[in-house]
């Protein structure tokens, strides 16, 4: 059964999941106290005390009180949405906790709507990166377990949705549980190659139920391989977080002068994000599954530090012996990628600039790229490096940052060493489709080898035959 919800309503529900403490504790949508009330009860209760919501205060990352009021006012006249009942609110306690979700019920269509909030805690960030090396992850399983504990008696349709990590959980549940009728993943990340291969049959069976709603410049949906149809929407809303706000759940909302909300389809995905998607996929594929945990931990540590705005700790991650090697791999890969695809680094520079980052650091990256041999030779001599950077007119603030984190020089040398050993175009960066994975596995099953290996053997055999014919002709 199709969902009775419009895409606008789906997106508004996903925005409600982030409403926290709007005008006081009663302004939290995902609270067990809201159970049995309707969305309308919640909206009316909060708007009655709208004066207590501070317009320019951020109530969730990147979303202000004024923006939340706009969202709630747009729900108020929507009778269909207002009558949806909040049946159960869930706070995950397993695996260090953090995931939050809601079981909603639409009485007009007897539709169960299961909605998952995006990454809630550091524990969930850790789970996000573990998607690189675990199939499935602990929090994906927790979400499935909770879903399977719910009573759907009397429900004619089951729809799952979620934003960001919540989108990934909703796709996972749809793949794993055939009872789901519809899935709307909003800016949710994808799955690893290994996941696609392991669940290829389930994915092929259920991917038709999945719609990915994506802000054209969102940077989370590009992670790993997507499953299901993709629809891109225009984004707006550059606030304090700059470019990072492309991932906020309200980024795709446009309001008219009467306060009504609309989504606008875009022509497609932002080219910068497409390029970044391909680069990240090909980088991840340079690592085998069993050694990816280190890379994942390095990335996760950087993300958690960046989330806290702690630049010093990010620098410390690069020189921490646990992460240094993986971080050097990543940077060396990006720098080598730059020589093959210079536009990619230009895109990264633009993204960083829009995000308020000091792009002088990229000057150092340029320097490393162009002088990797020199750096390897003299890089351990910190004073010489500082002198060279000063000569290159690198800003004083950046030089003092490097002086503060002197271990970064060893890191840069390691990057320079690794750069010469990397072939950035060795692995494809395209998303792995379940259909291709299945064909690959069929051929592998039939011949005991993968399709790629088989094509290499065929090419080798053809070459050998040609050489043989030439030799015979020469002898004759």
């Amino acid at each position, binding site marked *: 059964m199709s969902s009775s919800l419009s895409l606008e309503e789906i997106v508004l529900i996903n925005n409600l999941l982030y409403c926290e403490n709007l005008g006081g504790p*009663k302004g939290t949508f995902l609270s067990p106290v809201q159970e049995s*009330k309707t969305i309308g009860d919640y909206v009316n209760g909060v708007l009655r005390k709208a004066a207590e919501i501070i317009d320019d205060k951020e109530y969730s990352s990147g979303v202000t009180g004024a923006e939340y009021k706009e969202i709630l006012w747009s729900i108020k006249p929507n009778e269909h949405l207002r009558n949806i009942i909040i049946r159960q609110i869930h706070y995950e306690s397993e695996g260090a*906790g953090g995931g939050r979700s809601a079981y909603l019920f639409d009485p007009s269509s007897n539709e169960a709507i299961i909605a998952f909030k995006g990454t809630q805690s550091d524990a969930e960030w*850790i789970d996000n990166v573990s998607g690189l090396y675990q199939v499935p992850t602990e929090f994906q399983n927790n979400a499935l377990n909770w879903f399977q504990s719910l009573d759907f008696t009397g429900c004619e349709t089951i729809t799952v949705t979620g934003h960001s990590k919540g989108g990934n959980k909703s796709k996972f549940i749809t793949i794993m549980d055939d009872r789901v009728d519809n899935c709307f993943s909003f800016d949710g990340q994808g799955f690893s190659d290994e996941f696609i291969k392991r669940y290829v049959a389930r994915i092929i069976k259920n991917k038709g139920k999945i719609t990915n709603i994506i802000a054209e410049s969102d940077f989370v949906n590009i992670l790993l391989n997507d499953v299901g149809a993709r629809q891109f929407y225009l984004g707006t809303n550059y606030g304090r977080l700059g470019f990072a706000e492309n991932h906020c759940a309200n980024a795709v909302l446009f309001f008219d002068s009467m306060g009504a909300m609309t989504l606008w389809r875009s022509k497609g995905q932002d080219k910068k994000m497409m390029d970044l998607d391909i680069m990240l996929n090909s980088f991840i594929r340079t690592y085998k599954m069993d050694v990816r945990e280190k890379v994942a931990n390095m990335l996760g540590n950087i993300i958690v530090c960046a989330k806290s705005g702690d630049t010093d700790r990010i620098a410390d991650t690069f020189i921490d012996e646990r992460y240094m090697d993986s971080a050097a791999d990543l940077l060396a890969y990006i720098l080598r990628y730059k020589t093959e695809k210079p536009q990619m680094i230009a895109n990264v520079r633009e993204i960083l600039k829009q995000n308020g980052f000091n792009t002088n650091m990229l000057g150092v990256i340029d320097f490393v790229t162009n002088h990797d041999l020199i750096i390897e030779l003299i890089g351990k001599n910190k004073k010489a490096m500082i002198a060279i950077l000063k000569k290159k007119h690198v800003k004083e603030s950046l030089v003092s940052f490097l002086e503060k984190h002197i271990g970064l020089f060893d890191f840069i040398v390691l990057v320079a060493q690794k750069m010469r050993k990397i072939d950035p175009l060795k692995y494809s960066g395209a998303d792995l489709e379940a259909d291709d994975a299945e064909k690959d596995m069929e051929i592998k099953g039939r011949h005991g080898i993968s399709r790629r290996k088989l094509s290499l053997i065929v090419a080798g055999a053809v070459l050998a035959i040609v050489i043989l014919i030439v030799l015979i002709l020469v002898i004759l």
Partner: protein
Amino acid sequence: MELSSEEKKVLSGITFHSEEVEKGELCDEDKELLSELRAVKAYLTDKYKDYNFEVTGCEPKAGTARDYNEWYYKAEGVDRASAFIAMVWDKDGAFDIRDDFYGETIKEGASDAVKKLLGYGGFPVAEVNVSFWEYFGKELGQDLDPALVLRGDVHAGNDIKIFLDGSRLPSGSYENEIGKLETSLKEAGIKGDVYVVVLKNAEGDPVMDRLYSDSFELS
């Protein structure tokens, strides 16, 4: 440093240092988290002596819009799928902790009191659920009298949900009946937000079998 298995499980879950945590070799940030975790556990155990608690996780405030850390916990013998939450403010090394567990200890008493009151008034009550919005520190919450909370002498942010048996109400009389119910609660001095749902019958599902609903505030 010696860590219990519960402490190891939580710290490994919220940091990327699982190997170090396993060995008890904690960095400064992890030491801070551990001391907060221990403070939460000691606080809960001291406040609610009849219960055993397990702290299961944490969402640190860094990178969020909150100015406190949120700790997740569960209580042995309490059948609830969702975690309970304790909020912790670090005030110059001293922890200011507030929790929501008091609600678990008084919700039954408060619900029964409202049910009884409405029963005396002749209302066909199918079910009453009372829950609370506020978080209390160590000074409030243990051995709380539900009557004090319902009357608003202790401000807990009462949220009262009343489900009525619609088969015992004349059709079309719901608004009128809810008006009478409001007067009755007001006269009894009850405070809080009240949600009234009329169900098809006393056994009706609170979500699937609704005939009517309305809400009002008693301040």
